[in-house]
C-alpha cells in the first residue's frame, strides 16, 4: 500500500472505531431529528406506557389484565429518556408482537439482540467475555442484558460525572453479588454448589470498602485495560487471584484512575492550578495521586535546607569548641 492511501485508510479506520464517531443514523432505529418523526415515536411509545408505568398500574386501561404480572414490568419514561436508547421506538427492539394486548405468546423470542444493531462492538465484547470468569461455567446463563438493562444503561462516555458512572456500573455487579436471590438463581447452574462470598468480607484488606466503592468501579480492579481502542473497558473479568491488590495502582502520581474511570471526566481548575491527576480532583481527593508537584518540591526543598542548615550549625559549633578548648589549654 502506498503511504498516502495508508494514512487515508488509517484516518478512515479511526473514524469508524473512535467511540462516538459513528453517527446516530448508522445504527438501526436511531433517534430521528425530524420533529414530526420524534412526535410519532413519542406517541407510539406512549401506547406501551399506558400500561407499563406506575400510572398505568394505578389506572389500568382494561379490566382483563393480570395486574400482579404487570407490576413486574413497570418502566420509568424518564429513565428511558436518560439512556443510550432515548428517542428509540419500543417496537424497533420489541417487534410487532407486543403492540396488541394480550401480547403474542412468541413475542419474547423476537426481541432484538444487542448484536443485531451493534454488530462490531458486540463481537469484540463477546470475544473478551469468552475469557471472563463468568463464561467459564455460566456462559449460556450470562447475556448482555444480565448486566445492561437496555432501557436504563448509559455508556460511561456519555454519563460524564464519575460518581454517577461508578454508581451505575457497580450496581451491575452488586445487584447480583450482593443478592442471595439473583446470585443463587444464576449459580444454581454451577457444577458444584457455590455459597455467595460476602463482598465486604472478601475485600476486608481494603480500608473502608464502602468509601472505595462509591469512588471506584469493581472493573477498575477486576478487568485488564481494554485491548481495543473502540471500547473504553474490557469485558474480561479476571479470576480473583489476578485482581488488582496494589494500592499504588491508584494511590500514586501515575494513577490508573486518570486513564480509566476518569478518561471522560470534565477538565477543572485543578489542572490550571498545576495538580497531578487534576481530572480526578473534580470528584475525589486520592491520597498519593492528586498532589501538587511544585508544592511537594518546595516541602522537600525546605526539609533539605533545614537539615543542611542544622548540620552546618552543628559543624561550626564543633569546630569553634575545638579551637576554644585548644586556646584554653
Amino acid at each position, binding site marked *: 500500500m502506498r503511504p498516502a492511501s495508508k494514512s487515508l485508510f488509517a484516518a478512515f479506520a479511526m473514524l469508524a472505531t473512535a467511540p462516538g464517531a459513528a453517527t446516530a443514523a448508522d445504527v438501526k432505529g436511531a433517534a430521528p431529528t425530524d420533529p414530526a418523526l420524534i412526535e410519532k415515536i413519542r406517541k407510539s411509545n406512549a401506547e406501551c406506557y399506558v400500561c407499563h408505568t406506575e400510572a398505568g398500574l394505578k389506572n389500568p386501561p382494561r379490566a382483563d389484565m393480570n395486574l400482579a404480572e404487570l407490576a413486574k414490568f413497570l418502566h420509568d419514561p424518564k429513565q428511558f429518556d436518560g439512556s443510550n436508547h432515548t428517542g428509540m421506538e419500543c417496537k424497533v427492539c420489541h417487534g410487532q408482537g407486543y403492540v396488541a394486548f394480550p401480547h403474542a405468546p412468541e413475542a419474547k423470542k423476537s426481541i432484538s439482540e444487542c448484536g443485531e444493531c451493534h454488530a462490531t462492538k458486540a463481537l469484540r465484547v463477546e470475544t473478551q467475555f469468552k475469557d471472563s470468569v463468568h463464561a467459564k461455567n455460566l456462559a449460556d446463563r450470562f447475556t448482555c442484558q444480565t448486566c445492561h438493562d437496555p432501557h436504563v444503561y448509559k455508556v460511561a462516555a456519555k454519563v460524564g460525572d464519575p460518581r454517577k458512572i461508578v454508581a451505575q456500573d457497580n450496581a451491575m455487579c452488586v445487584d447480583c453479588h450482593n443478592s442471595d436471590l439473583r446470585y443463587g438463581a444464576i449459580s444454581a447452574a454451577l457444577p458444584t454448589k457455590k455459597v455467595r462470598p460476602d463482598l465486604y468480607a472478601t475485600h476486608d*484488606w481494603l*480500608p473502608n470498602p464502602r*468509601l472505595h466503592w462509591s469512588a471506584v468501579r469493581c472493573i477498575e480492579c477486576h478487568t485488564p485495560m481494554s485491548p481495543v481502542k473502540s471500547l473504553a473497558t474490557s469485558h474480561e473479568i479476571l479470576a480473583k487471584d489476578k485482581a488488582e491488590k*496494589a*494500592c*499504588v495502582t491508584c*494511590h*500514586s*502520581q*501515575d494513577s490508573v484512575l486518570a486513564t480509566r474511570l476518569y478518561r471522560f471526566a470534565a477538565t*477543572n*481548575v*485543578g489542572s490550571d492550578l498545576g495538580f497531578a491527576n487534576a481530572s480526578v*480532583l*473534580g*470528584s*475525589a*481527593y486520592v*491520597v*498519593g495521586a*492528586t*498532589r501538587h508537584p511544585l*508544592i*511537594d518540591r518546595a*516541602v522537600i526543598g*525546605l*526539609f533539605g535546607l*533545614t*537539615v543542611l542548615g*542544622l548540620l552546618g*550549625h*552543628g559543624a*561550626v*559549633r564543633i569546630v*569553634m*569548641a575545638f579551637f*576554644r578548648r585548644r586556646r584554653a589549654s
Partner: protein
Amino acid sequence: MSHRIYLLPPWLRIWHWTNATLMIVLAVTGASLHFADPGLHLVPFSLAAKIHDIAGVALLVAYGFFVLANIVTGNWWQYVPKPPGVLARCWKQIVFYGWGIFWGAPHPYPPTEEANFNALQAIVYWVIMYVVVPVVILTGVVFLFPDLAPAKIFGLDGLLPVAMLHYLAGAAVILFMLAHIYLGTTGVRPTSLFKMMITGWHEE
C-alpha cells in the same frame, strides 16, 4: 557544675516521649502515603495507612491528655511569653543561637522553676502546640471521616483543602521537630537536655 533544679514532672516527660514517638511514626507513614510510588522504598501503602490511622488516633488522645494536664497543673502558664520586652528577649535569644553559641557565651535565659522556657521557646512552642498541632489533628479527624468534609469547593473535591492543610501543617511540625531535636544538643553538654527530658532534672 553541680547546680541542679527539678523542672519536669513525670506526666510531662511521659507525655513528651509518647508524643515524640507518635510524631515520628506519623511523619514516616504520612510521607509514605503522600509520596506513594511503586518505585520508592517507603512503608507499603496499605501498612502505612493502617499504622498512620492508629498512631493518629493515639496522638489525638495524647494531645487531649496534654491539654487537660496543662490546665489542671497550671503548666500552661509556661507557654505564655511574659511582657514587657518579649521581642527584645527573643532577639537576644536569636543572636545567641546565631553568634554567641559559637563563642561559648552562656545561655541568655537559663531555665528557672518559674520560667522553664525562654521567650522564643515559649512563642514557638505555643504556636506549634496550640495552633499547628490542633490543625493537624482536626484535619486528620476529617480525613478519617471524609463525610465531614464539604462535598465540593470551587469545583474540586471538598477534601482537597483539608488534605492540603493536613499535609502542610504536618510538614511544619516535622520541620519544627528537626530544629527542636537539634536545639536539644545545646545544653551544657550535647546530651544534658535529653537527660533532663528523661530524669526531670536540669543541670547547669
